């Protein structure tokens, strides 16, 4: 073991990374999102995607969906670290529940004319994207689906005059009658 002079044990772990989607039910109070994000940055965890919104107004509950990457031990740590925060009710690993649905929404602005314009419309139709704004030289498409479908659509729009993209990040829910 060849490690440089250090008071710490420097070693690298080489466990493979996994991507997990976590649903976190929290009390909607000031600072709660900062707590969650601070946990991730403070402990060096990854955030691939994060969405948050109040879901039950009367109970002041918000649902945070986080897509994160890490070794299995790190993923387990993240869940425990989230769960022990005071305003966190529940943490559910949607990836482990197996039968969950993930959706993302994107708005995609494309500018162009002639064949590119026709091709963009044709592809949008194939991807079931809707036109939500149009000018004589541009479209804004709205597309919903899982993240890879949206990424694929965006890639196809690039040569056709892609201007900009706004994505919501992933929202997830389990299949079947049970809630989280």
């Amino acid at each position, binding site marked *: *073991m*060849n*490690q*440089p*002079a*250090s*008071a*710490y*044990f*420097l*070693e690298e772990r080489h466990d493979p990374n996994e991507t997990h989607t976590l649903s976190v039910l*929290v*009390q909607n109070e*000031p*600072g709660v999102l*900062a*707590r969650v994000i*601070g946990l991730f940055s*403070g402990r060096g965890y990854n955030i691939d995607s994060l969405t948050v919104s109040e879901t039950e107004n009367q109970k002041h509950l918000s649902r945070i969906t986080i897509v994160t990457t890490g070794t299995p*031990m790190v993923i*387990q*740590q993240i869940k*425990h*670290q989230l*769960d*022990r*925060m*005071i*305003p*966190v*009710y529940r943490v559910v690993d949607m990836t482990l529940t197996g039968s969950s649905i993930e959706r993302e929404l994107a708005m995609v602005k494309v500018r162009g004319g002639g064949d590119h314009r026709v091709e963009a419309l044709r592809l949008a139709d194939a991807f079931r994207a809707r036109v939500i704004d149009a000018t004589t030289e541009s479209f804004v498409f709205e597309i919903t689906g899982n993240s890879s479908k949206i990424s694929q659509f965006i890639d196809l729009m690039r040569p056709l005059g892609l201007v900009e993209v706004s994505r919501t990040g992933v929202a997830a829910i389990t299949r079947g009658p049970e809630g989280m």
Partner: protein
Amino acid sequence: MTDKSHDPNQMTGAAMIVRALIDHGVQHVFGYPGGAVLPIYDEIFQQSEVEHILVRHEQGAGHAAEGYARSTGKPGVVLVTSGPGATNMVTPLTDALMDSIPLVCITGQVPTHLIGNDAFQECDTVGITRPATKHNWLVRDVNDLARVLHEAFYVATTGRPGPVVVDVPKDVQFATGTYHPPRKSDVHVSYTPRVKGDATQIRKAVALLANAKRPVIYSGGGVINSGPEASQLLRQLVEATGFPITSTLMGLGAYPASGPNWLGMLGMHGTYEANMTMHDCDVMLCVGARFDDRITGRTDAFSPGSKKIHIDIDPSSINKNIRVDVPIIGDCGNVLGDLLQVFKAEAKKPDIKAWWQQIAQWRARNSLSYRKNNDVILPQYAIQRLFELTRGKDTYITTEVGQHQMWAAQFFGFEEPHRWMTSGGLGTMGYGLPAAVGVQVAHPDSLVIDIAGDASVQMTIQEMSTAVQFELPIKIFILNNQYMGMVRQWQQLLHGNRLSHSYSEALPDFVKLADAYGCVGLQAHKPADLDGAIKEMISIKRPVLFDCRVAALENCFPMIPSGKAHNEMLLPEEATDEATAKAFSGGKALV
């Protein structure tokens, strides 16, 4: 509208704070006044149930409250002003978070309408202290204040204890609202720490323990935090199983150092027998410890052949650094009680004679030995004498951070929990002196000694003034080697003995300094003078600064070098220059 002027629960925010402290049985508050807490100080002035201890720096208030909390099991309470008052608390809050010490810190804040305005002495207290606390609150409405204060005490003291901050803007302190005494609904319903261990897991653990051939119990600060009963149960478990037991720095005193099964502390500067027992064991029972990096050494070579049971109240401690086989989430005392009951009912004391014989061989290496010296005081010898001469007295020990801390852990035997206050996780130099102030406030008639180093003690030495003001007869026992000893040791071992900025140049004359503070200064230069001077220190009923001049270049051994495993310890008699160079061969050392 009803007339509320005679309702005793109608009061100002400032009055609510003092009332809540009284309702939670708080007798002492450590603090420092300032603009944003003046209404609270005005309330403190007009009552006599809560005594306020005025420190000289907010960090001192925080560490004093930590010492108070750790020596009593009750939460330590701090009151500081906004801005610098709050930022000066960040170190003790983080220290308390790392070592799981219950603190309730009330900070003043600029008036609500000025928040975000860069007002005088404004800072984002909840933002700054968010990663330094278990939880924190900014109270914008006086009618939320009572609930938040009660929740703050609950959160700080239950589950895995920790520090909390309640930030109260000045206009909320002045505003009048309705107070209510503590009630269950004050707490977030999402906060439900688990106390009782899972029965199936406990049975699994008992099965492992009952069939162990080479077991070890590895206990930590969680046992102390769980209360004195947990330490009693741990002792009963050791008795019932006959297993060897070691402990982390934070767990010293849960099992008595004079007990027959005691192996000494484990980890980087732990005993050879403790670390070898950990490395070679087949069943490890970890109680209230967290497999921290000073304990494990190289994690991929940590106790490779053992099944590991881990009792911890915090699920995030499980499988964080080391994979365990039987996790049990719950309060140490509660789980130990259940475990002991099942063990007694279903298992026999396993026969581990061969294991004890092996341990005896490790013990015979005498890993804490040091060469005697008649000319200069060796730091190890100084602590041994301090221990012998305070034996049987009602003694509490605090420390700063560094070599002296490790020597204190190695050579001072603790028989009871709550007697040892040290900064373990954060490693805060300057912890010990104010912590001693806090301990002495809680135990006015006890002997409270801060085992200090010449560098650490200067970080918070201003608190001597607090000790003098409140007639707290703390004893500051400085092992003065004129170096930041641990830094110097690492520089010697890892950086070619280039002693970059680790020499304590321009040290004050501690005896004269004591005099200047109005306390007593003592000094010892020779081993022959030591006993007399220690006895004198003990007999003085005032604060003492004891300047114990010790060998300058002594190193702390045994030691697990970086990147090595428990069975690769460097023992004192082996620590020749050549062996040291070899042990640290990965580094730039001694090339």
